[in-house]
C-alpha cells in the first residue's frame, strides 16, 4: 500500500458517516476461497507456492489463503510476510516510519512461485517496492500478485493475477479494509477521503 488513503490503520478518522460497506464478511470469505482455487488452478496444485503478505493487512490475508490451500490440497503451503518500508519510493517525502516484520518461510523463495498478497491495489508502487525487496532475498521462478480489492488508478505497469473485487473508485475516495486479526472484524469500506491524493 502506498498512500495514506489505503491505510485504514493510520487514518485518524474513526470512519465518517459517509462511509459504506462494499464487502461484507461473507463476501470477503467467498472472495478468498475463489482466489485460493484460482491459485491452485494457475499453479497446478500450489506445489511450489510461497505466499508472502505485505504488512499490515496483507499478512493475515496470506495466512487465510494458505489455510484454504491446505484444506483443498491436504498439505501445508508456506506463508510469511514481506515488509517493503525500506524499499519505498516516497521515503524522502514523508517522515520515517516504523518497520513491519519480514518473515520468509524456511523453505526460502529460490525457484518457488511467490504469490504476493496485499489488501488494496492502488498506484502499484507498493508492489514495485515488494519486487525490489524480493530480489534481495532470493530468485523466485515466478512472482504473482493477489489482492482483495483492486481500486484502479495505477501509476506503474503492474497488474494483479488474482483479484477479490474490482472496485471502481475516484481518487478522492478512500478504501479501508478491516480484518478480524487486526481490527476485530472483517469489512471493506468505501468513503470520501478528507484529503486529495498526494502527487496528483
Amino acid at each position, binding site marked *: 500500500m502506498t498512500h495514506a488513503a489505503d491505510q485504514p490503520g493510520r487514518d485518524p478518522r474513526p470512519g465518517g458517516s459517509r462511509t459504506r460497506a462494499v464487502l461484507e464478511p461473507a463476501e470477503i470469505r467467498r472472495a478468498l476461497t475463489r482466489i485460493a482455487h484460482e491459485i491452485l488452478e494457475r499453479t497446478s496444485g500450489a506445489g511450489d507456492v510461497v505466499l508472502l503478505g505485505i504488512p499490515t493487512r496483507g499478512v493475515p490475508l496470506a495466512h487465510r489463503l494458505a489455510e484454504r490451500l491446505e484444506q483443498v490440497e491436504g498439505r501445508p503451503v508456506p506463508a510469511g510476510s514481506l515488509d517493503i518500508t*525500506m*524499499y519505498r519510493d516516497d*521515503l524522502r*517525502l*514523508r517522515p*520515517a516510519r516504523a518497520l513491519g516484520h*519480514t518473515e520468509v518461510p524456511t523453505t526460502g523463495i529460490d525457484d518457488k512461485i511467490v504469490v504476493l498478497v496485499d489488501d488494496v491495489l492502488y498506484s502499484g508502487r507498493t508492489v514495485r517496492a515488494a519486487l*525490489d525487496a524480493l530480489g534481495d*532475498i*532470493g530468485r523466485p521462478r515466478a512472482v504473482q500478485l493477489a489482492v482483495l480489492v483492486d481500486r484502479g488508478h495505477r501509476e506503474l505497469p503492474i497488474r494483479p493475477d488474482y483479484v477479490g473485487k474490482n472496485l471502481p473508485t475516484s481518487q478522492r475516495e478512500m478504501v479501508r479494509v478491516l480484518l478480524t486479526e487486526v481490527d476485530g472484524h472483517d469489512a471493506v469500506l468505501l468513503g470520501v477521503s478528507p484529503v486529495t491524493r498526494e502527487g496528483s
Partner: protein
Amino acid sequence: MNRHLISAGDLSLADALLILDTADELASMAERPVKKLPTLRGRTVVNLFYEDSTRTRISFEAAAKRLSADVINFSAKGSSVAKGESLKDTALTLEAMGADAVVIRHGASGAPHRLASWVRGSVVNAGDGAHEHPTQALLDAFTMRRRLGRLDGLRVTIVGDVLHSRVARSNVLLLSTLGAEVTLVAPPTLLPVAVGGWPCSVGYDLDAALPKADVVMMLRVQQERMNAAYFPTVREYSRRYGLDAARMALLPEHGIVMHPGPMNRGVEIAAEVADSVRSTIVEQVANGVSVRMAVLYLLLSGPGEQR
C-alpha cells in the same frame, strides 16, 4: 524524533523504543544473501573523527553502507585540521559537499551540539569528550533487551571510571528513560561531583551490588586519563573493582556481563570473564551496526530541512 542525536537524554521513551524496534527488524537482515537496503541511496554520511576510534567508526561506516548511503571518512590526523582549521570551517566545508548526516567524535564535550547549529544535515554524536555516546547506550540497551527480553525494571550495575565515561552517562540517561534501575559502582574519586543529580543510585562496593544485578557493565579504565592519582595502583583497582570469575559467580543465574570495549584484560575484566558465555561483548559489536542503521534511517528519511 529530533533531527539530531546529540544526547541519549533527548530521546523520549517512544523514540527510544522506535529505534530499538527498528534495529530488531534490521538485525534479521544480517542473515540475508544481500545485506544491503536501498533506503539511503544518494545520501551522504560523513564520519568526522577528531579522536581515534576503530569500532565506532567502522560500525557507522558499515551501517551507512548497508543502507546504500555514500560514506566519506574524515579523520583529523593528516587532514586540514592538523594544519589548524577550526571546527566551524570544517563544518562549512562538509556543508558545501552536501553532507546529509555528520557523525562526529570529538575530544571536547559539546562539539556535536555546536556543530548542529552550523550544518543543515543531521548530526549524530559518536562520543564527545567525557559527555555522551548515545549510540553506544542504544546498542547496550538493545543487547540487554535481546538477551533478557525486557528493559523495564531491569537492574543494571555500571562499574568503573564513571568520571571520564561518556558511555556511563548516556547509559544512565537512556536506561532510566526505558525504565531500568541503574546503579553506579566506582571509587569515590572516579565519580563526577554532579552524580547526585543523575537518575540512578550510587554504591562503592561491587561485591554487594552483584547479587542484585541482571546486567553488569564494566567500564574501561582509561589509562590515558589516569594521570591524577584517582586510585593508588592498577592492581588495587583491579582487586576492588575488577570483575573476575569469583565475582561473576555472585551474579544471578541469568545475569550478563557487558563491556563497551576496548577491554583492558586483567584490569577491569578478567580474560576468563570476557570470554565466558555470559559476556555479550562480541554481540554488542554486531548489534552496534543494526542500531546505527536504525538511527541513520530514522534521522535521514523523510523531508529534512534541506531535502
